[in-house]
């Protein structure tokens, strides 16, 4: 019975959870999430399915002027996210991240870089409502770290990378922006890589290229900063990275 008290790892993104979401990006009050930052600033990095916020929190001090958001999709308490926007649908997890961010902000007031004012979390269903939060071409990076593999064939439609969802990710990401994916499940890696490669608005970009462009810190964080990533390391699993750049195509 004890295990039933834990938060389930899955939440069905197709259900209508009791989540609030802004009716349009113009209605989104980002300042409420990032009170320590000038109003009007919007997130640039979004971590979809941010879990315990590891990535967003690691990136925050590296990009002190960029807002980062984590998204959580667990049911339950909703936590709102910040400029580094974490989006997570799971309740308890989002609450945890919110508390963690609050604690970090309080502990680091006055810090010039690691102030954590630029990171927050939103409890949201990114599969359905991404466009409600982010305007066209407003993000420069999207992160899909260790997403749920949804092993069963009939569950594949719930995977976070699909030919139909990619259109939305391309919409919110500005041309030149990067999608970072990493997983320890080879099948899922193949799936994501294949779908992204076949999507006309994304082109593959290698780790070397990213490092050459100065994004090495981000790549390192993608590999190592999440709870999930650390667990994979402990279990001596492999991690597969696949990154893509958003491009434009002619009419």
């Amino acid at each position, binding site marked *: 019975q004890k295990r039933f008290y834990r938060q389930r790892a899955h939440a069905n993104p*197709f259900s209508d959870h009791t989540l609030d979401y802004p009716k349009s990006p113009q209605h989104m009050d980002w300042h409420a999430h990032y009170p320590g930052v000038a109003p009007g600033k919007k997130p640039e990095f979004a971590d979809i399915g941010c879990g315990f916020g590891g990535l967003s929190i690691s990136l925050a001090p590296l990009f002190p002027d960029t807002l980062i958001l984590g998204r959580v999709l667990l049911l*339950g308490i909703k936590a709102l996210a910040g400029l580094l926007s974490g989006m997570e649908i799971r309740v308890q997890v989002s609450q945890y991240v919110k508390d963690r961010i609050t604690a970090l902000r309080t502990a680091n007031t006055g810090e010039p870089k690691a102030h954590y004012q630029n990171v927050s979390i939103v409890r949201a269903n990114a599969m359905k409502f991404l466009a409600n939060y982010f305007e066209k071409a407003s993000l420069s990076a999207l992160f899909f770290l260790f997403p749920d593999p949804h092993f069963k064939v009939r569950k594949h439609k719930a995977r976070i990378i699909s030919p139909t*969802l990619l*259109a939305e990710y391309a919409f919110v990401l500005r041309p030149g922006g990067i999608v970072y994916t990493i997983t320890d499940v080879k099948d899922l890696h193949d799936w994501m890589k294949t779908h992204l490669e076949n999507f006309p608005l994304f082109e593959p970009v290698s780790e070397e290229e990213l490092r050459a462009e100065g994004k090495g810190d981000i790549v390192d964080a993608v590999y190592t900063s999440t709870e999930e990533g650390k667990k994979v390391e402990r279990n001596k699993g492999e991690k597969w990275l696949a990154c893509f750049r958003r491009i434009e195509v002619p009419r």
Partner: protein
Amino acid sequence: MSPRFFPYSHLEFRSGIPVIAVSGFHIQLIHASTGAVLFSTLNSPPYIQESLKKSGPIRCAVLDNSNTHLVTLADDKKLKVWKLDGLQLLHERELPKRPTSATCTLDGQTIVVADKFGDVFSYPLHPPPGSESQISTSAPLPQEDSTTPGESISVYATADITLPAVKTSSNKRKSKKQKLHENPPAPRSSLASHVPTSDGTLVLGHTSLLTCFLLTADNKYIVTADRDEHIRISWYPQGFCIESFCLGHTQFVSAVHIPSDRPGTLISGGGDAELKIWDWRSGKHEMDIPILDSVKPYIKVKVKSYTRTASTNFTEEQADRSREGTEDQESAPHASEEQAVLAVQKIRTLSDHILFTVTGGSALFSVAFLNGTSTAPSVHAVNFGKPVLNFTIAPDKRIWVNIDLNWSENENGDDYGDDSPAGKAIRVVNLAADGQLSDVSLTSTPPILDALQEKCLIEASAEDLAALNLYSSLQSLPKNTGEYDGDDDDLGNATPRATGIPKNIRTNTRKKSQGSGGGKKEQGKLKSQKAVAEKTKKHGNQSVHRDVEDVVPHEENASESKLLKSEGPATEADSEDIRMLDS
């Protein structure tokens, strides 16, 4: 018992061709002046009639621009293409999911179909030669397509024949990458979820039930709207490139329209109390036109809202699959109040006025299309007493309205109502310059009207009529009624509303539905004593999540969740256990 007749679901009036009248399973072509029936599927060979009956009532009928081909969709997954002249059924194709609506491109060579799952596929007008889906008039009943649509292995085979054989101009322009995108190759060990069947090409998809869509007049853009309040504008045929969203609806969107004389404007309606006007290319919301108050008195079809008491829920959990009905009501006596649900059904424009109808409403409405006025324009209505099913604007600017002639206040019982159906199936309306609508059915009765009112009526059995299910969208579209919609594709349970600004924290006072498995409404519950005690509405689904304080936010939790995750498929079993433990 006096005979009952099918109401007309579609009428099409175009200069130079007979009037197309669709009612029940059948299509009739009627001479526009004399009212003589030129062709009718009632006279089609038996195997075609069988096929029509099997497919169910025709839900969508679209004629291409050159008046050559007619495309029909019914309650099954078949796409039928007819040659208008002679009403010849050319072929039928199996679609991957149940279609909701279709349209033809300008050149008539491509059919674009939206489905319940949320995807839009395009199909060449004619399937490639040699495919099993063709029907020739001399052949016996058409072979069923051997591949089963959906997620079965055989779909992979169809995916191999990915590119349509017909060379449409769009095909030539496509880059290899684009072609790959439209026909996602199934990764070797698993199957993609958006695999087309029958030579279809994926245009785009929403993560929600698609309610309506349209192609702009120049076919450069496709506007798609869904149950989750989104209106999305994408390139056509490159549906993967989203141009903009028109966001602002707080309820499902069920009708969209771009006026031909204002091609940059989009008018949308759904469950919201107002129609919305947009500059669709930028996504900018330009204005609202309030309609609810004017429309509400005419909403005749009411929806039962279910309320459940705490003691009844466990049995109801079993019954949750079927909404439409009686099964839900078997348990505990609970109040099923009837309420009016607003769902805009169809929007058109005529002479600077917006014409619209609402599902289950007995009137046709018009409202002036004035830009930038400060006062809300008044909504005019012409009432017919019984619900309007559809309306069409004829070339002479008269509006022909299809009425549900069988509907009666006493609710689909065997009560016919004492009015004879003749004279009630169709009304003709005139729009005056000031927006007033008037019923002119009695003042001018051309032979075509008489024909439609009487001799073209097709008899329907009681079961046929019951199967029509004309107002189901009133139950399935709204998100806050506590109803599930009954799809096989677990889309949408009870829901949230889009608000202006998201709230910070929601307390767990309500039960939330949390589906987990595919297909069925799984009860992935979190165990909670409180949840059991405080069950209120909603189909006994689950349990709420425990209070925040109980969260143990650290590694242990993560690994525990990871454990659950890798057990993956065990979730269903878990739910079973939980349920039993609860009781």
